[in-house]
């Protein structure tokens, strides 16, 4: 796997997906919570400020009715200086908008359509420097073109609000980052574990039953699953090794007496004159031993392929198909059968070369046996280099559709094949070898004839 693929692989893991979903949910929750707090705070703080200004406006409106201009100016000055009401601003201007009294340096430019409430900015001293503060205020006319402004510094409130907003955004971003980061990390862990498991599983599938899944200290679900699978593999290995042992001892117990028989027959032959009845009997015995041996070989190889305990290596299938076709070419030519082949180069499969060769040889052997003199056999290897398909077609009698399943079983010879020599195990071996290699064996009508397809 390339780094890019590994990265994309992590994005596809379930922990990562769960983390993404949870991060989004948490981020939304945090945003909603802070939004609600902000809304509530604004209502309380804004409401109290507004009430304060409203009351002040009301008071001044009443005072302007009863006080003389100079007294009113004094009142405004007083209020402006009052340190108890922090943040309150006042300004009284003449008809030319020149300040008369108050703690705001100049009448702010206000659009006429802004309604009762408006906002403006004022530079206020802040330590040694000045700072622009936002004010919320109401304005109302006094007498003779004089105007009054009453407001309150809302900068603090704005600061709190923007601080809260920044806090909110930071919280959401952090939640998302932590969520994604955590998800990525967990995804990688899972992927590493899953990768180790699937690597071992592949080796096991290739017949190395001694492999076990990696198990860590932790007692999480993956590890306990791996432990269970390992127990299962122990059992499978025991069974398979048991089968292999049975097979080996069966082989030994059958081959040894056959060997004695052959030795005895061959050993006695030279003492007898060629052509004598006794010698002919021994020759018959010897040839029957040969026949039994070839049947035994085939049966043992089928059983061996079925246990799956066979060494595997990369096999150049293209080269193998060509070599088997080449092995049978002269025989088919003798029979006047046109054996043609088209083999795509570079097809490789993980497998046992000897078993694959024998399976292919059996297919060609069958094809040649059942194709009439002067017939045709076509061998093809096509498909991609790692999923190749081998097809052997002949124009012999074929196999009826309802018998195709049966002939793949042990020792089935159709009535039509009684007069052809053979053990009847050829296709069974092909089937077992196909299965061992995880391939698909299909018998089909070549119209006329048999089409055998081996799809890896």
């Amino acid at each position, binding site marked *: 796997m390339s780094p890019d693929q590994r990265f994309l692989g992590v994005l596809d893991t379930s922990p990562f997906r769960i983390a993404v979903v949870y991060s989004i949910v948490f981020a939304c929750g945090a945003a909603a919570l802070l939004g609600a707090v902000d809304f509530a705070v604004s209502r309380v703080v804004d409401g109290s400020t507004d009430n304060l200004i409203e009351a002040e406006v009301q008071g001044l409106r009443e005072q302007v009715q009863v006080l003389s201009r100079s007294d009113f100016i004094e009142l405004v000055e007083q209020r402006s200086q009052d340190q108890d009401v922090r943040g309150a601003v006042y300004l009284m201007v003449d008809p030319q908008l020149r300040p008369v009294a108050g703690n705001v340096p100049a009448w702010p430019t206000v659009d006429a359509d802004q309604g009762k409430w408006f906002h403006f900015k004022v530079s206020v001293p802040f330590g040694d420097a000045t700072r622009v503060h936002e004010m919320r205020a109401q304005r109302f006319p006094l007498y003779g073109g004089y105007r009054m402004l009453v407001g309150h510094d809302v900068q603090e409130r704005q600061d709190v609000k923007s601080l809260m907003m920044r806090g909110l955004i930071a919280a959401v971003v952090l939640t998302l980052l932590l969520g994604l980061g955590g998800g990525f990390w967990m995804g990688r862990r899972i992927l590493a574990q899953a990768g180790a498991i699937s690597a071992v599983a592949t080796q096991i599938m290739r017949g190395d039953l001694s492999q076990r899944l990696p198990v860590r200290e932790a007692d999480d679900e993956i590890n306990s699953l791996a432990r269970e699978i390992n127990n299962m593999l122990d059992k499978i290995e025991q069974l398979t090794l048991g089968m292999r042992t049975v097979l080996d001892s069966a082989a030994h117990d059958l081959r040894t007496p056959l060997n004695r028989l052959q030795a005895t027959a061959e050993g006695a032959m030279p003492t007898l004159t060629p052509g004598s009845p006794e010698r002919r009997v021994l020759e018959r015995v010897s040839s029957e031993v040969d026949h039994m041996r*070839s049947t035994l070989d085939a049966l043992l190889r089928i059983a*061996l392929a079925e246990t799956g305990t066979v060494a595997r290596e990369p096999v150049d299938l293209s080269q193998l198909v060509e070599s088997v076709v080449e092995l*049978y070419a002269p025989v088919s030519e003798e029979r006047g059968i046109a054996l043609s082949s088209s083999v795509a180069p570079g097809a490789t499969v993980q497998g046992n070369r*000897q078993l694959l060769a024998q399976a292919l040889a059996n297919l060609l052997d069958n094809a040649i046996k059942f194709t009439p003199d002067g017939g045709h056999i076509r061998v093809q290897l096509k498909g991609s280099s790692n999923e190749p398909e081998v097809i052997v077609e002949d124009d012999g009698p074929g196999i009826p559709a309802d018998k195709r399943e049966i002939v793949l079983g042990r020792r089935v010879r159709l009535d039509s094949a009684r007069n052809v020599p053979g053990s009847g195990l050829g296709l069974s071996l092909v089937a077992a070898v196909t299965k061992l290699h995880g391939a698909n064996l299909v018998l089909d009508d070549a119209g006329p004839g048999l089409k055998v397809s081996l799809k890896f």
Partner: protein
Amino acid sequence: MHILIVEDDEVARDYLAKALREAGHTVDVANNGLDGLHMASSIAVDMAIVDRMLPKMDGLALVQSLRATGRKVPVLILSALGDVDDRITGLRAGGDDYLTKPYHMSELLARIDALARRGDSGNSETNTKLKLADLELDRMTRRVTRNGKKIELTAREFQLLEFMMRHSGQVVTRTMLLEGVWDYHFDPQTNVIDVHISRLRQAIDKDFDKPLLHTVRGAGYSLREDE
């Protein structure tokens, strides 16, 4: 040749010893692995025939121990197991050839002969030019001539002839050819090898008085000058 047989099956051992003696060899026998290893290490034998499954010490362990002591004596392993991988493990343990039971004596004798003469014939593996009578084969130029006349062969026929020439004067069995030329370790049910041989015979013998490629009845083929 002095041959050691390590075999626990009495019938097989006696017949083997008898047949080898009749073929003119000196024979020593051992009926278990431990004795076999002792004898193979102490007696100057030219070859050992070792059964794979032996009491006291397994045949493979015997061969491995023998190789570990640096003994290069050719070893032929006889096996009564199912083959495929067993053959590979047998050869990997240090065996030089591997034969599955039941076997024909002709097959065993041909293989012993091939093992014994491996490397000492004039047509050894390192020679680029192989020669038998007026038949010449050049492995570098892939050119075959007989009596100076060029003979056209297919790639496989060339390999087949090369194998036969490297074993010239010996009997070569069908399974030896299938193993040596095709690297197949199974018995094709049809006479595929015979047809390949008759093709080769057509190519090298047809236009010449003296045939070189002979059929050895009941055993195989032989490429040789006489007869």
